[in-house]
């Protein structure tokens, strides 16, 4: 059956999919290099998930602690990632993030200041020195608005509320992307010489998450469908502090800045329990008593408070306290800043946290400790990229930001995401533009591919089945939450694989009501393809990795394993079947390896 609909088509050199920090930065770079660039986003411009980032952007600028430098940041990032990181990405990230922060300032961003007028930096988990440039607790908003306004003045073409979910190929290389315009439901194709994926994460597949509706893993799924390799998909970060009450806000992010600025975690007996959960790996650098922990904030000769251990450690500790019956009334623990800082300090440093709790929970965080618990927050895994160029394993396809994998290894440090976006967003834009200028011929688009993609997207309107996309989504979220959460085990993961198979069968029969214009039911039905695919890869990767490391904890293999420490799990698709293998980690050169031998 031929499609009786004309498909709107655009031609560009580079199409950037996603307009969070990485996407906008990529588009700015690619456009500056002379490539005709389009920036395409699922939401309105400036609403991407980056706006929700709170605490800051990590960069070893040395404005607060002169002792800080890229080597220390590199070491912190690798150790926080349990050494599973791609060392070259971690090196580039630590070396380039100070320049990217200063560039944001050149473009109009106004960070909080030190007394002598430089950019102020705050403490965060896993960072040896106060390192996060910030604007109170709304750093992501500052960053996205700065990039947004800069992009507007550079005249970059922005396509808002356009969802692209299928890559077009010319042989093995990329030739465009396909999707629909949300406002009208019309189908749209972008012919492009190169594509940059900057589509963010996949948290919407879990029930309790800090992620917005957009985070459905589109970029990872479309890369996989186009033949690209994924790595580390089992590594999911549960942020230790999400809101837990009331139910409507469960999962909403509470910035690590609360602990960075002096807040401490307590259980139902009032005990600062993190002292009981200091792993051997971090023992040498972590304070084992309250006095030293509190002194660390002002004098870094002391060891760091265990409240600021990397996120995976803190999330597991909270989980254990709740399981042991020492949790808060609604299944979390208490975060206390009220007894440790003055109301004025709290309101100045954490204004949006104050407002969020006051307006949504009726809790005054300057007066009482408040309940927090783990929430699905970030995918360390994703599309495999070349460390220097952000190129994926598919020619012409690049990826940057959360959709890409490697920088964060098994666990991401707070503050390393915003810096990731601008460091690798810029690189992806640059190398995509270079790729385009070196291309001998324009890739061809294939009408049959377009037609097939169009039919797949419109199928939910023809389906006679009674399956509701909302019901499938709710069941998927329960499955991932219950069986592929913080603590995993073989029997539950196997059960999850079976349930995901059943959900895939239900998705075949999904039906939607109404027309195509701004129809969230239809849009969700299409997002479910991405969510189910990334959920399956995550679950199957989690089954393979028989050890515990960072964002992957196996109850049946509770310790890290020396052999697994040297392996990435790689997933790709052959036809419609997933194919998995392990690859050895890239080996760190001796001059960098030396940084881990020194006593700290």
């Amino acid at each position: 059956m031929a499609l009786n609909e004309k498909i709107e088509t655009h031609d560009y050199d580079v199409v950037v999919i996603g307009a969070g920090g990485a996407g906008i930065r990529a588009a700015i770079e690619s456009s500056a290099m002379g490539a005709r660039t389009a920036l395409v986003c699922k939401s309105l411009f400036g609403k991407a998930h980056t706006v929700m980032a709170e605490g800051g952007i990590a960069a070893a600028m040395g404005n607060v602690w002169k002792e800080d430098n890229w080597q220390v940041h590199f070491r912190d990032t690798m150790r926080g990632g349990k050494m599973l990181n791609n060392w070259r990405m971690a090196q580039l990230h630590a070396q380039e993030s100070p320049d990217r922060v200063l560039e944001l300032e050149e473009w109009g961003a106004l960070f909080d200041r030190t007394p002598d007028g430089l950019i102020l930096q705050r403490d965060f988990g896993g960072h040896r020195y106060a390192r996060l440039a910030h604007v109170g607790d709304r750093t992501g908003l500052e960053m996205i608005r700065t990039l947004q306004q800069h992009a507007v003045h550079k005249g970059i073409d922005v396509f808002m509320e356009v969802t692209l979910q299928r890559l077009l190929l010319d042989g093995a290389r990329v030739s465009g992307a396909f999707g629909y315009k949300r406002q009208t439901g019309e189908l749209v194709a972008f012919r492009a010489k190169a594509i940059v994926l900057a589509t963010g994460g996949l948290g919407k597949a879990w029930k309790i998450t800090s992620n917005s509706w957009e985070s459905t893993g589109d970029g990872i799924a479309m890369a996989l469908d186009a033949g690209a390799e994924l790595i580390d998909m089992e590594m999911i970060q549960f942020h230790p502090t999400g809101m837990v009450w009331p139910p409507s806000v469960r999962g909403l992010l509470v910035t690590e800045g609360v602990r960075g600025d002096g807040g401490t975690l307590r259980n139902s007996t009032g005990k600062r329990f993190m002292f009981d959960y200091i792993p051997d790996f971090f023992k040498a650098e972590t304070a084992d008593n309250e006095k030293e922990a509190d002194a660390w904030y002002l004098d870094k000769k002391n060891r760091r408070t265990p409240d600021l251990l990397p996120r995976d450690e803190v999330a597991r500790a909270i989980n254990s306290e709740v399981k042991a019956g020492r949790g808060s009334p609604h299944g979390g623990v208490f975060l206390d800043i009220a007894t440790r800082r003055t109301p004025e300090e709290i309101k100045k440093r954490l204004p949006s946290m104050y407002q969020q709790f006051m307006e949504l929970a009726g809790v005054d965080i300057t007066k009482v400790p408040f309940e927090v618990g783990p929430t699905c927050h970030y995918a360390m895994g994703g599309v495999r990229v070349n460390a220097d160029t952000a190129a994926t394993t598919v020619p012409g396809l690049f990826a940057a930001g959360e959709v890409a994998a490697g920088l964060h290894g098994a666990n991401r440090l707070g503050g390393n995401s915003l810096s990731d976006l601008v460091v690798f967003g810029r690189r992806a834009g640059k190398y995509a533009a270079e790729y385009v200028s070196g291309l001998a011929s324009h890739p061809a688009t294939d009408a049959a591919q377009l037609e097939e993609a169009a039919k797949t997207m419109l199928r939910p309107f023809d389906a006679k089945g009674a399956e509701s996309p909302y019901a499938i989504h709710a069941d998927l979220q329960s499955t991932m939450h219950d069986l592929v959460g913080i603590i995993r085990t073989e029997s539950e993961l196997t059960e999850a694989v079976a349930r995901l198979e059943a959900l895939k069968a239900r998705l075949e029969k999904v039906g939607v009501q109404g027309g195509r214009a701004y129809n969230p039911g239809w849009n969700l039905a299409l997002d479910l393809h991405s969510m189910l695919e990334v959920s399956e890869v995550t679950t199957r990767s989690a089954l393979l990795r028989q050890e515990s490391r960072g964002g992957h904890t196996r109850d049946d293999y509770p310790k890290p394993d020396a052999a697994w420490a040297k392996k990435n799990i790689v997933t790709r698709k052959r036809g419609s079947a997933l194919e998995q293998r392990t690859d050895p980690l890239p080996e760190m050169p001796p001059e960098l390896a030396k940084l881990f031998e020194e006593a700290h």
Partner: protein
Amino acid sequence: MAADHTFKVWRGDDKGGAHAEYTVPAEEGMVVLDVIHRIQAGQAPDLAVRWNCKAGKCGSCSAEINGHPALMCMTRMDEFAEGETVTVSPLRTFPVIRDLVTDVSHNYEVAKTVPAFKPGPKEADGTRRMYQDDVDRVQEFHKCIECFLCQDVCHVIRDHEDNKQSFAGPRFFVQIASLEMHPLDRNDRKELLHLKAGLGYCNITKCCTEVCPEHIHITDNAIIPLKERLVSEYYDPLAWVMRRLSRQGGKAAP
């Protein structure tokens, strides 16, 4: 257990529409957006609503709730009397796309007309030095989440479609103020303010300030200083030069 929530939600498109009634079981701590999502999941799967963060940080879910412009994600159900019917309608100032979603692209067009940030030279040591006291007031403007509630409520454009061509609106007065008061900025926007942005149309009724979910003092801190600056810039060039120079001097460290 609290009573059910009864909602009247506007359903329709650019050709017209009407409010439809829905009933949803109440749960503790619900906000208006939760109720809309429950209606979507159970009764009206194609109900169009724009939202992202559900935490008052992205400014996507603007609507008129019982006639009052507000974010659906930050309007708690316990603000209403028990049993009160809540009416949710799309923003009136912008054309409807479908149901609760409006076409706010006008705002993105206005944004293109604001002259960009243009910093002066760096310090001799290659740094940019600014002091917290000097950035505080601009940081207030940077809190703007572009929900466009101020644009929606402003009667200059709410009641007079034609004015959209010659009046930028409160959101952009905040943006222009943030650029004009930025300690590093050296660009010149007075012609824009005078001729194209239509600052003179604003007669300071403060409606915009009242609806701002970020509590930005739009009228007092952005619009009035811009009006004062415009007056002195157009009628007293010496005063303008002096102020510009004194701003460049910066402020001694506290």
